[in-house]
């Protein structure tokens, strides 16, 4: 009985090794077309856009699988630095990408593939009549922001600073999506998130524009991770995201084009 137990343990341990449960990252090319599978670590604000991009890419390249892990860019950069199994990294700010580059985790110069702006998300119908950042800090408004250390939170606070509005002691959530959800679920009256998040939420929230002089230019870089198991496929996906077709899809989700 002891032997049988040991055998089971051995089987389980060896079977689940380092590549874990996900499909094996295959070799590079098959008949000149990329094949195999990659994991893309992407900012949570890219969830809908990248899911679509991944789906389209898989359809155009039948032997491929693209999986995603969406989270705050700062968290993803940390994970990549600790050896998490990513093949591509798409960040919502230059700082998180710089952190990954400084850690030697990015293969070659990351490229900016999209830009984003901030918007105020409020409950449908805007019952509290919020029309500016200043309105969001009024005492009867429950405001929620992204945590200060994640890109969305840094952008939001810099926006408030530009508008000369003081904001402190605000409840926060860890990702842009989670922050928006608070408003969508009726737990908060207002949130400052990306234009793309408001667009993705459709009828669940209304968006209030933040004027250009108070808004921020969120820059989204993407790069291949050095420790990728499938360099060819990772490069192919990055190329696809930066291509005109990729940019059209991103614009469909309300992202702005990268500056030429």
């Amino acid at each position, binding site marked *: *009985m002891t032997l049988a*137990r*040991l055998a*089971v*343990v051995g089987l*389980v*341990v060896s079977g*689940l*090794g*380092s*590549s*874990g*449960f*996900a499909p094996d990252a295959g070799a590079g090319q098959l008949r000149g077309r990329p094949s195999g599978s990659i*994991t893309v670590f992407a900012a*949570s604000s890219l969830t809908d856009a990248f899911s679509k991009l991944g789906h389209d890419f898989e359809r155009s390249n039948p032997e491929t699988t693209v*999986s*995603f*892990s969406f*989270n705050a860019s700062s968290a993803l950069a940390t*994970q990549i630095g*600790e*050896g*998490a*199994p990513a093949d591509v990294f798409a960040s919502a700010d230059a700082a998180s990408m710089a952190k990954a580059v400084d850690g030697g985790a990015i293969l070659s110069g990351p490229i900016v593939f999209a830009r984003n702006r901030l918007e105020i998300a409020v409950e449908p119908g805007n019952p509290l009549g919020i029309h500016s950042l200043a309105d969001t800090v009024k005492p009867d408004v429950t405001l929620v922001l992204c945590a200060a250390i994640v890109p969305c939170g840094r952008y939001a606070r810099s926006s408030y600073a530009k508008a000369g509005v003081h904001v402190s002691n605000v409840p926060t*959530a*860890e*990702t842009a*999506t*989670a922050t*928006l*959800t608070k408003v*969508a*679920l009726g737990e908060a009256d207002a949130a400052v998130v990306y234009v793309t998040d408001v667009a993705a939420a459709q009828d*669940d929230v209304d968006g209030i524009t933040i004027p250009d002089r108070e808004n921020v230019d969120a820059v989204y870089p993407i790069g291949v991770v050095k420790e990728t198991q499938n360099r060819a496929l990772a490069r192919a996906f990055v190329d696809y995201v930066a291509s005109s077709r990729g940019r059209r899809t991103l614009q469909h989700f309300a992202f702005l084009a990268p500056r030429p």
Partner: protein
Amino acid sequence: MIAIVVATIAIAFFAAPLVGLLLRAPWGNLWNELSAPATVEALKLSLVCSAAATVLSVAFGVPLAWVLARQQFPGRRLARALVALPMVLPPVVGGVALFLAFGRRGFIGQELDDWFGFTLPYTTLGVIVAETFVAMPFFVITVEAALRSVDHRYEEAATTLGSGRITTFRRVTLPLIAPSLAAGAALSWARALGEFGATITFAGNLPGRTQTMPLAIFLEFENGNTDGAIALSLVLVLISMAVLVGLRDRWLRA
């Protein structure tokens, strides 16, 4: 009288969250939610990892329990305290500590990386390690208590009749503690299944690789997919109740 009132409030306090879950559950849509690909992956991953953690807990736990129960050695109390620590330690602290030991720059993880190019964080094996860390103590403590309370005369009788030590253990001791073995395994399985803090800190929240049921529930809830979160929660509630029912004779002697 006051005791009854306070007790009723306390029971209501425990019942309320469960009632909330059942009231808000998407009963009509339950099957759709549970068969979503991400949900199925989380379910499969949870079952595989918790089963592996339980197997490891038993494989290492039985010898450990035996040594703690039967052997006298200097530092035995310290050893027992170390084994019991994960039961009281906040799980997220366990995750951070595991990271510092087995992460890429951890004092053990660094050797693993240098020698085998292999890291534990953010892998399925890392999930199993984290779950074993929190679950094994439950098994060891249960079995150790059982070994202590076993009537030694049966084992002595077997030895005097010519049975070797391993045979005695296999054919006399183990059957005697079998109910505790089962209970300990069930406890550690349930604990491994529900583990969140150590898993998310040590293994991250990667779909298909390290996103177990509790992590999936957290992500769904955070991102507004309340229906998905509730559906998965119901599965875990059901499993928890099944474990309680199975262990009712040991815990809830009415």
